[in-house]
């Protein structure tokens, strides 16, 4: 027993000595990131000029998220006035582990984020589709019953990650409930040791995309 303990301690010391206490070099970096958040960026941050909106399906059935963002754009006709532009996406999330988490990057600035096409009607407009078969196919449209998040009310800002999680519950339409979460980019370390996904995404877009 003592010999086994000695071998274990020696192995641990050896690993630490060779990797400089960087656990992500001998453990799965994804696993380390879940506990420390220091390997890969969890939020896009200011420098990428994105917000990340994720849908997390914590149920046992496929869910389709209908995510909408609003932007205030200065009117070309009447300078000084602003019109609201909306952008919606549909994301299909099967219930399987890992595949159940789906996200989209939106260019900043964004004024409001929510579920459903009309953000002013979170209690009547379908924002998630329970038991969807594919994107835009089937499923029971359910109002999210979650108010949209507003940048003006400091609910979020450019660079943050917003997560809409759907979980199962009783006594609700579709048997699901939606909750919204915000990861504040200013409260999370940006000194990551792995790839900086969102900055790389921005630089790839800038390099490859034709100027509009």
């Amino acid at each position, binding site marked *: 027993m003592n010999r086994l303990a000695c071998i274990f301690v020696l192995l641990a010391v050896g690993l630490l000595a060779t990797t400089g206490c960087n656990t992500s070099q001998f453990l*799965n*970096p*994804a*696993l380390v*990131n*879940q*506990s*420390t*958040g220091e*390997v*890969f*960026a*969890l939020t896009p941050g200011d420098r990428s000029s994105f917000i*990340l909106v*994720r849908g*997390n399906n914590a149920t046992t059935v496929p869910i389709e998220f209908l995510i909408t963002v609003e932007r205030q754009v200065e009117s070309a006709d009447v300078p000084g006035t602003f019109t609201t532009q909306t952008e*919606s*996406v549909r*994301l*299909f*999330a*099967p219930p*399987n*582990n*890992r*595949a*159940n*988490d*789906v*996200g*989209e*990057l939106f260019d900043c600035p964004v004024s409001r984020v929510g579920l459903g096409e009309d953000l002013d009607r979170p209690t009547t407009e379908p924002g998630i589709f329970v038991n969807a078969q*594919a*994107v*835009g196919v089937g499923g029971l449209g359910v109002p999210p019953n*979650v*108010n*949209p*998040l*507003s940048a003006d*009310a400091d*609910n979020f800002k450019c660079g943050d990650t917003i*997560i809409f*999680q759907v979980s199962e519950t009783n006594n609700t339409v579709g048997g699901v409930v939606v*909750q*919204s*979460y*915000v990861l504040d980019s200013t409260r999370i370390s940006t000194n990551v040791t*792995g*790839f*900086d*996904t*969102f900055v*790389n*995404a921005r630089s*790839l*877009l800038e390099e*490859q*995309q*034709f100027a509009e």
Partner: protein
Amino acid sequence: MAKQSEAAPRRISTRTAAANGYRMSRVVALVAAIGVIALAGGCSSIFNPSFINQVAAPPTGTTGTIPAITLNNAPGHVAILLINNTRFDPLLLDFLETTGADLGDTEPIPRIRVRVNITYANGSENTLELISGSEIVEGSLTGGTPPELTEFPLTNFVGVCDIASVTPEQVELYVPVTRTTVQIVETQNVITREVLSEAPPAFVVLQPDTVDDNGNVTVVRNFDIRKGPVLVNGVRCGSVIGFTASGTVQVPFIQVQGATVPGFLDTDTAAQAATPGRFEFLTNVR
């Protein structure tokens, strides 16, 4: 003495009450602590749900609901981007304008749809359709927009680690005009052109060139076999995968019954194979 004897029990009684009160407050504190722990530990089902709702409901404002509880950190992300650098042939745009299509103020961008299969390390899968481009179709001012063009665009996707592979399964491009197949008919030494069939505006699957056993191109189609979208295997956590499409949407024009329309002769297999244009796909991983 009598006074003392009366006073003594009184003092003893006071002490007992104080001790009892102390014990009671300890019990109440203990019960409260157990209650708080039970609430926090998810044992809320033992309490009246109405009471739990009053205690545990997240703060709700007029602008948003942000529960104080948090989720686990993501294990890391992988971003998949579709970069659409395709363009319309000016001749095609001119034709679209004559049909009354609403081209808008900015130059329209061809609509492409890429079906991508994502396989995770644990065996889970998800299939998504990346969509990019304008909602443009011939005669749209009068005819309305077909439902396949009103699908919401999806130019990027962010999944969580660990993603094992990303496979672009097929690339489709929306051809916004009706393509007419024309045949030459000879009747009593008179040669005329007649409409054989019409393919309405629709998404078409882009095809790689046909090659022989030695890799020589035998039929030129929509992209070189070396310039198609490729599978990305062994994706490292935190990576960004970009599919960049470039090329020009072109259709041949043909004269039939006094009008020039997009189309080809039924015998012109080369023109049919090369429609709707020539494209390249670049796959980036970083």
